[in-house]
């Protein structure tokens, strides 16, 4: 499983796959953010030397078989129950490093109660929250985080507030809970954002070692298949449509809320038809 390879023809090795990633080819659609997030998480785990201490929890969603790619001990969880499963793990193994890897449907719809209570108890683990605004796994239905106007297979005319309600800014609510220590929003759609995200992961694992409480990193991600876009279009869409409603940046640092500029309301986010 070790990524170390013999240099060919005396060439120098400048990049290696971390030993914390398996050889298994990922099943994610081309351009999907899931694969990048996996890679960053596993890079950090290798660099911090915590592979033998780390237990991951991946619930149902596109990343349910993350354990095929992550070369660490893992538990698959029922849809919505990742933070409950992680609580069970962490409470009996308090000196291990635990993280969950959850989609928006998982974290902000079916698992809202578990999410809020784990964060409110200050469970000492990291929640990685992949907000792609859609149910990727089940074929592109509306998610609690789908933005207003967004077309999905269950909102063919676009999400509309009167019938489907508002997109759920659950991360803002989580930041307000006293159990959380570090709450931040990132993306992985450019090399720079990937580097920023990696820093956040490093911090979160460090805070966990220091037993600071719950850390949550939201990744505003894409779903080219569910969004019916090319990877490039989807990355552009992240910036133009998702960021105004889900602005990247820290929401809570060192257990303190970060002052924010007012965020534009959902209803003003105008969605243009994408090809």
């Amino acid at each position, binding site marked *: 499983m070790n990524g170390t390879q013999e240099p060919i023809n005396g060439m120098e090795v400048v990049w290696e796959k971390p030993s914390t990633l398996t050889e298994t080819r990922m099943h994610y659609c081309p351009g999907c953010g899931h694969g990048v997030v996996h890679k960053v998480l596993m890079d950090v785990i290798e660099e911090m030397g915590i592979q033998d201490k780390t237990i991951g929890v991946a619930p149902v969603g596109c990343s349910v078989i993350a354990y095929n790619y992550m070369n660490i001990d893992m538990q698959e969880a029922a849809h919505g*129950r990742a933070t409950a499963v992680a609580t*069970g793990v962490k409470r009996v193994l308090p000196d291990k490093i635990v993280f969950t890897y959850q989609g928006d449907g998982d974290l902000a719809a079916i698992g809202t109660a578990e999410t809020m209570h784990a964060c409110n108890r200050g469970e000492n683990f990291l929640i990685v929250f992949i907000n792609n605004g859609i149910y990727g796994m089940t074929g592109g239905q509306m998610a609690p985080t789908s933005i207003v106007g967004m077309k999905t297979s269950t909102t063919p005319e676009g999400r509309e507030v009167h019938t489907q309600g508002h997109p759920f800014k659950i991360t803002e609510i989580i930041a307000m809970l006293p159990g959380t220590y570090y709450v931040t929003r990132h993306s992985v759609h450019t090399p720079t954002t990937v580097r920023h995200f990696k820093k956040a992961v490093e911090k979160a694992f460090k805070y966990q070692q220091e037993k600071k409480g719950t850390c949550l990193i939201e990744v505003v991600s894409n779903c080219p298949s569910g969004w019916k876009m090319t990877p490039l279009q989807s990355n552009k869409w992240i910036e133009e449509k998702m960021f105004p409603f889900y602005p990247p940046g820290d929401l809570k640092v060192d257990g303190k809320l970060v002052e924010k500029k007012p965020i534009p309301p959902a209803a003003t986010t105008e969605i243009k038809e994408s090809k």
Partner: protein
Amino acid sequence: MSEVLLMEGNEAAAEAAILAGCDAYFGYPITPQSEVIEYLADQGRKRGMVVMQVESEVAAINMVYGAAGAGARVMTSSSSPGISLMQEGLSYIACAELPCLLININRGGPGLGTIQPSQGDYFQSVKGGGHGDYHLIVLAPASVQEMADYVYLGFDLADKYRNPVLILADGALGQMMEKVIFPDYDPKQRKISKPWATTGKTANRPPNVITSLHLQSEDMEKINIHLQEKYRQIEKNEVRYELISTDDAEYLLVAYGLSARICQRVIEIARQQGIKVGLLRPISLYPYPYEMVSKLADQVRGILVVEMNAGQMVEDVRLGVNGKIPVDFYGRMGGIIPTPEDTLTSLKKLMNKTQPKKSSEKLIKEKV
């Protein structure tokens, strides 16, 4: 520790869990079993257990999943509506083969029902309950002593078979006080190693994965075949029952838990009246003592099944009897406990139906 103590069933179960080396408990209050979490919140925490009151039974069972997957000896308890909420999680636990202990202090349903004792969750407990083909090992205590005994047994069986174990009792057993002796039990010796648990991947082994997902049908069928083979082993090794006054019995009562206690009184009264009746008390409800039912059906003239429900275990008795003799049912619902007198009346009705030859000869003559 052979001291005789006076305790209620819920507390005896909780104390037994501590003595059995239970590492963690996750639960949500519901009558008539909240004494379990209350006792553990005091005694369990003081003696080093993780004891958590959490946001719901859904969360509780998934915490049990996580802790069991991490190798801990872990349990939860609830009563009927809460156990219903746990069914999805239990199905995952059964498929992922995670050892754990559950206690259902059954109350009357359906719906919110009543907080009074019931046996209405028999089907849910022994036939699956959640989705897919799986079984819990189900143990039915009939006394406070057994509430304690089966906690030890339950943890051991769970570890042995990597299977969830359910103790199915009712509100009366949970709340009545009786004497109890906690047997000597050394958790350090009894707890087995769990090399499959997610404790952090070390260099000398591949990653441990706890999952119930097998996307390829062929793989999923293999898992099912493996589970079924395990269930056949459990059926071979773990059938438990008690026989009372069956040696000379001409009629048989079949009842478990509290109903079996009532049937013992029925036997006393009936035998005073010269009725030769005995009792088969299934202790393991899964695996079910079908063979003993079948054997006794060759001996007695008729069977009366007594339950605190609309007739659930009676279906398993009929499977065991396989049409050889009449099987009648007497039960009360909604949290009402059958009286020995009414049960005896039902037994006598059954006896009238099953009088030897004469009556059937008469019937034939009448027809002619």
